């Protein structure tokens, strides 16, 4: 078996606040194989952004990793110094596509200046070769008139074009892993489709791994090979996309799917709200909202179960089944 591009196990991240330590990520576990797209799905506030910042090592000063490991191509990223991360990981071996293409580019610098800055830093070399490569990439992401684009400013592009720029930027230093943070939410539906198609093509073409963070199950269904569902900082269920969408195991996944307009007749919704990480209930964090909750759920955290090959679920229900 090949080494996964990214493997996270038992990750816990806390943030110091006025009212004590908040467990913003409680236990997160998943892995992505090269050439694979993993969708990480969760409602807003579930810790998706923190997860990305944790992997990239750009947590806010008040936050820290409490436990767990982040293995990137077999190396523990937690062991890297800030300088090493900045020089050799972020933007080079791990590419990043941000959420909002309108806000992510520095408005006062030309596209060329910004993108080449990153390339020069991560792969010192001749300026010309960098710009040649960049132009090629821009052409690859189907940006019109790529040569001229380098001299233009961000506000002179449309949203879709900017997202293409950012995708090209993420690929510029030949990364092994690309993290995409809801890259299509700010775009209109048609553009969204084009971008998703582009991403899929690029992953297949380059054989890289991609971590695709989103709240949109529809996008996941369309794009991802595997899915990992997060609720309130905890991974609740992971597995191949098709299998999971067909037969969700965790009550939360089921509820989530039930909410999706494409997949249910009635718009049901989940009662209650995502708990604050400060006042996370003991045991399973979904228990207070779970229709099938039982007293044991609030007693302790569930242990991960593997009810089918390639699928895992964190729910007491399946502990019982496994035991039986």
């Amino acid at each position, binding site marked *: 078996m090949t080494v996964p591009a990214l493997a996270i196990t038992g990750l816990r991240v806390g943030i110091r606040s006025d009212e004590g330590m908040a467990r913003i990520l409680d236990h997160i576990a998943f892995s992505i194989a090269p050439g694979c797209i993993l969708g990480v799905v969760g409602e807003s506030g579930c810790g998706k952004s923190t997860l*990305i*910042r944790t992997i*990239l090592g*750009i947590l806010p000063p008040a936050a820290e990793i409490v436990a767990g490991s982040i293995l990137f191509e077999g190396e523990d990223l937690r062991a890297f110094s800030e300088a090493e*991360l*900045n*020089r050799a*990981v*972020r*933007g*080079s071996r791990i*590419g*990043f596509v*941000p*959420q*909002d293409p309108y*806000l*992510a*580019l*520095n*408005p*006062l*610098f030309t596209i060329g200046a*910004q993108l080449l*800055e*990153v390339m020069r*830093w*991560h792969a010192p070399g001749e300026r010309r070769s960098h710009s040649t490569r960049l132009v090629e990439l821009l052409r690859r992401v189907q940006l019109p008139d790529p040569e001229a684009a380098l001299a233009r*400013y961000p*506000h002179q592009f449309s949203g879709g074009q900017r997202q293409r720029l950012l995708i090209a*930027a*993420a690929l510029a230093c030949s990364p092994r892993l690309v993290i995409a943070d809801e890259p299509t939410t700010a775009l209109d539906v048609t553009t969204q489709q084009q971008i998703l198609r582009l991403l899929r093509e690029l992953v297949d073409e380059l054989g890289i791994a991609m971590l695709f963070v989103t709240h949109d199950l529809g996008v996941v269904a369309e794009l991802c090979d595997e899915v990992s569902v997060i609720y309130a900082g905890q991974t609740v269920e992971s597995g191949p996309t098709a299998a999971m969408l067909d037969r969700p195991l965790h009550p939360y996944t089921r509820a989530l799917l039930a909410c999706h307009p494409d997949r249910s007749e009635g718009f049901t919704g989940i009662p209650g709200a995502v708990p604050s990480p400060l006042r996370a209930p003991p045991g399973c964090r979904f228990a207070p909202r779970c229709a099938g909750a039982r007293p044991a759920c609030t007693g302790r955290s569930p242990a991960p179960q593997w009810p089918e090959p390639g699928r895992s679920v964190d729910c007491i229900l399946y502990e019982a089944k496994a035991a039986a």
Partner: protein
Amino acid sequence: MAGFIARRVLLVLPSLLGLLVVTFLLIRTVPADPAVALAGDNATPEQIEAIRRQYGLDQPLLVQFGRYLAGVARLDFGASQFSGRPVAADIAQRLPATLELTFAALLIGAGLGIPLGVVAAMNHNRWPDFLLRILSVGGIAIAAFWLAIMLQLLFAMQLGWLPLRGQLSVGLTPPGGPTGFLLLDSLLHGRLDILGDALRHLVLPAVTLSVGGLATIARFTRAGVLDTLQKDFVLYERAVGFPRRRMVWIYVLRNSVVATVSQIGLLFGSLIAGAVVVEAIYDWPGIGSYTVQAILTADAKVMLAVTLLVGVIYAAVNILTDLALALIDPRIREGR
């Protein structure tokens, strides 16, 4: 770009006219009468009246203003009612000294204030930030002349490193022409001895004058950087591993100095005002002490000319500021 400048210049003209009207009215409301001073200590009331007629001070307001405007249009600002000297000549002689001083102060203020502001912001709520906040406030609060005297005591009296006062040592003669700026002229004439001497004289006044501006610049830069650091693109730049130092000093700073640069435009006015005190203490032969003299002697011609001059400088600096902003921000350049 040329259109942009032309538009700005055109917009300035009505403001300047408005400025003149306001000032003229203000000055005319002041009862102080220059004729009394001119007539001297032993004058009879009849002699004072004669002088008043001679200077047209008995004419209706509108006539006086019309005459004055006609003069200004020919760049003739009249003669000082106090000294009888042509106002334009006196100002032309003194203005370069003030400009040299203010530019030097601005240079020090921006040269130190911007980096200090950045450092403070990058260390938000840690000790360099606290220190800078306290120092910059102190800078604004410290009375210029108190600081000036302390600097004089230390550097001119105790250490003897720098001259106490003046623009040039007594033994040296200014090279004269062509620009009127002492530093520039001595350079053009190749008189490095004069240049060095003039620079030594410039240090203490410029530092004193810069303190308030430095504090303002540092504060605005700090606030700007803090604002910018919240922007999505900074997070993005961190996420793709921009070189740290270049990210702060180039990519973040350029976004943060917009407010600072607008401030520098405003600051220039207060620097000229601050020059009044600094010039007095260091005996700097600039426009500040000239203005105070004019105010104390109710010399309307000089006050009007100085007001107009400050207005023009202010407008010019603001146009320059706008140009600088346009250079910084491409969106402004495109008129968005």
